């Protein structure tokens, strides 16, 4: 994507780190140095190095929301640190046009002994605001955080949620050209998370700022970002529209080697909707979860269980083949079994994941467990919160007596 105004560019960037512990005291350094002089042996450095990023290139345009996803250790945080210049790339070039506000850790500059008010000024200055600017926006910041009552309390008495709220509030009011956000939405309560998401959208749309967003919360990423970068072991895997990239990310997670510790295992889990393999569903839609089981030896008496959990690991639904009245099945080297669970997704908006287990009921034994086997992202037409969708409708009646008439006219109501 080539646009008129590129605010941020990474050009074949690579970053190398040294593994293991560097000498961090003179006491260790001096013997090591003298040892090297006397033995004249060169330590091979190559084995102590690893590349956290390899040849990463992308451009971000003004006003774009750019997301970076990938498993832990993929190099997401390294990219952010390079972007906000706390580290220098080993190779390649980074160009940034504009002021930047980094929210890599909420309230990174907070001092526990200072009050909320004092910390707003301190944190604002750390993020590059002028004192006058902070004073002007102070009320807005406090109001957004919802901490007006605690603003003169030292932040060490704050809960972690309050801490995060104040941190985000300051960072969101810096008015940067580029806002970098790393996993902030994982803290704070649901309402505040929604508020953060809205604020980020607003910063992007009203102020025309560019947002770089790193998160494991795929739903939040999908909602906010225009483009996504999928990173794996320091390499760019895919760059494109959120839907596509998320799908291929989830598929990559699902391709897993079967363990076969008991000679039998879950080899594949696929989520299908009406249109084929998919992750996004409307609330109320049907989903089909296909589970394939294969084996290296003959095993019988098997059953499959599936359990759903929310993002915060609260298990809210589970079922199994035996509870659904199915007989146990058997697999062997010649026989792969595919089971499909059909589900009506009367769920509230959010993302949910499910675990799959392969077990033998009579032996009380789990043969294989596939944790976080898949993810479902649910959106609803109506703005509702919670895990269930009860399809709410609200009526308004002007005249209360009508209601009584209505009730009286019903049979069985006195």
């Amino acid at each position, binding site marked *: 994507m080539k646009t008129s105004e590129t605010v941020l560019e990474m050009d074949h960037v690579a970053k190398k*780190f040294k593994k293991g512990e*560097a*000498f*961090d*005291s*003179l*006491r260790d*350094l001096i013997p090591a140095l003298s040892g090297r002089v006397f033995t004249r042996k060169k330590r091979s450095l190559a084995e102590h190095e690893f590349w956290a990023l390899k040849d990463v290139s992308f451009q971000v345009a003004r006003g774009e929301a750019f997301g970076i996803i990938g498993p832990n250790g993929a190099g997401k945080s390294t990219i952010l*640190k390079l972007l*906000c*210049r*706390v*580290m*220098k790339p080993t190779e390649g070039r980074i160009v940034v046009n504009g002021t*930047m506000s*980094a929210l*890599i*850790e909420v309230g*990174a*500059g907070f*001092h526990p*002994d*200072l009050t909320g008010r*004092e910390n707003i*000024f*301190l944190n604002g*200055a*750390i*993020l*590059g*605001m*002028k*004192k006058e600017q902070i004073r002007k926006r102070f009320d807005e910041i406090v109001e957004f955080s919802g901490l007006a009552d605690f603003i003169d309390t030292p932040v060490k008495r704050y809960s972690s949620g309050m801490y995060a709220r104040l941190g985000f509030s300051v960072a969101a009011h810096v008015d940067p050209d580029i806002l970098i956000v790393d996993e902030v939405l994982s803290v704070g309560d649901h309402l505040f998370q929604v508020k953060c998401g809205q604020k980020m959208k607003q910063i992007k749309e009203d102020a025309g700022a560019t947002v770089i967003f790193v998160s494991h919360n795929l739903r939040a990423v999908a909602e906010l970002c225009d483009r996504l970068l999928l990173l794996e072991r320091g390499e760019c895997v895919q760059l494109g529209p959120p839907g596509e990239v998320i799908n291929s990310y989830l598929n990559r997670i699902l391709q897993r080697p079967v363990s076969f510790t008991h000679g039998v295992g879950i080899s594949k889990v696929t989520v299908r909707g009406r249109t084929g393999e998919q992750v996004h569903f409307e609330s109320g839609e049907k989903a089909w979860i296909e589970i394939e089981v294969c084996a290296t030896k003959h095993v019988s008496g098997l059953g499959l269980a599936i359990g759903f959990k929310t993002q915060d690991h609260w298990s809210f639904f589970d079922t199994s083949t035996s509870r659904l009245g199915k007989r146990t099945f058997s697999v062997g080297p010649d026989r792969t079994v595919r089971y499909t669970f059909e589900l009506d997704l009367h769920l509230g908006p959010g993302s949910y994941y499910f675990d799959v287990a392969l077990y033998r009921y009579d032996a009380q034994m789990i043969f294989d467990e596939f944790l976080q086997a898949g993810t479902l992202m649910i959106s609803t037409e109506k703005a509702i919160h919670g895990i269930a969708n009860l399809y709410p409708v609200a009526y308004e009646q002007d005249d209360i007596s009508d209601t009584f008439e209505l009730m009286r006219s019903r049979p069985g109501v006195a």
Partner: protein
Amino acid sequence: MMESIGEIIKYGDLLYMMVWRDIRIKYKQSVIGIMWAVFMPMVIVGTGILVRYGFALASHAPVDFNDLAAVSVKAVPWAFFVSTIRFSTGSLVGNPNLVTKIYFPKIIFPISSMFSQMFDLAIASGLLAVVLAFMRIGLSVHLLWVPILLALLVLCATGMGILLSAANLFYRDVKYLVEVVVTFAIFFTPVFYDVSMFGKWAYIFLLNPLAPILEGIAACVVHHRMPQIEWILYSAAASLAIFACAFAFFTKLEPLFAERI
């Protein structure tokens, strides 16, 4: 170098906030509060007077009032120097979150440490001025030297602070080394004594760039005479060299801070 100085100026408000934070935290939740600013110089002055009294007894000479005043006048800047170095050394390591997560010129840490100690210096100096006035030390034209000498002291202390803060980030035992050196440095610096006591060997002590500054302050405040210009020039050159080297060293290594902290 000009570029980095420009950046620091751009972050002037941050520097101000960091100094304010350090001062604020120091006096929050402390029993004697602002008295801390005079506590350390007072201990040094007390020790100095004791030592001078001992000298006087041993040499059967009367205790000179001016000598006691000179000890006090030298002790206050010395306390500033020592606490600046102590505080600066830990300033980067003490804020790992800010070093690894947010970009701004990191040299603000040691510089703000110096400024927050300067606040203590100002309070202690004010108190000292009152005491000296009571002691009828009097005024003279030579007092105009004091700002120049203090500026040199600040330059030297800041340079050392910048250097040590970066060194401590890479090698944590620098801090212990600093503690030891700073504790014993008072014996190699003319705070409790005057270099003139050593006669022709005085110049050895004056090679310590702090010595001419402290002696100069005592000379113009207590003895109402010009400091030794040639030695002041030497101090100025040394301080400038320390500062310039420290600055270059710091800015060169700054990109490595986030990885090595």
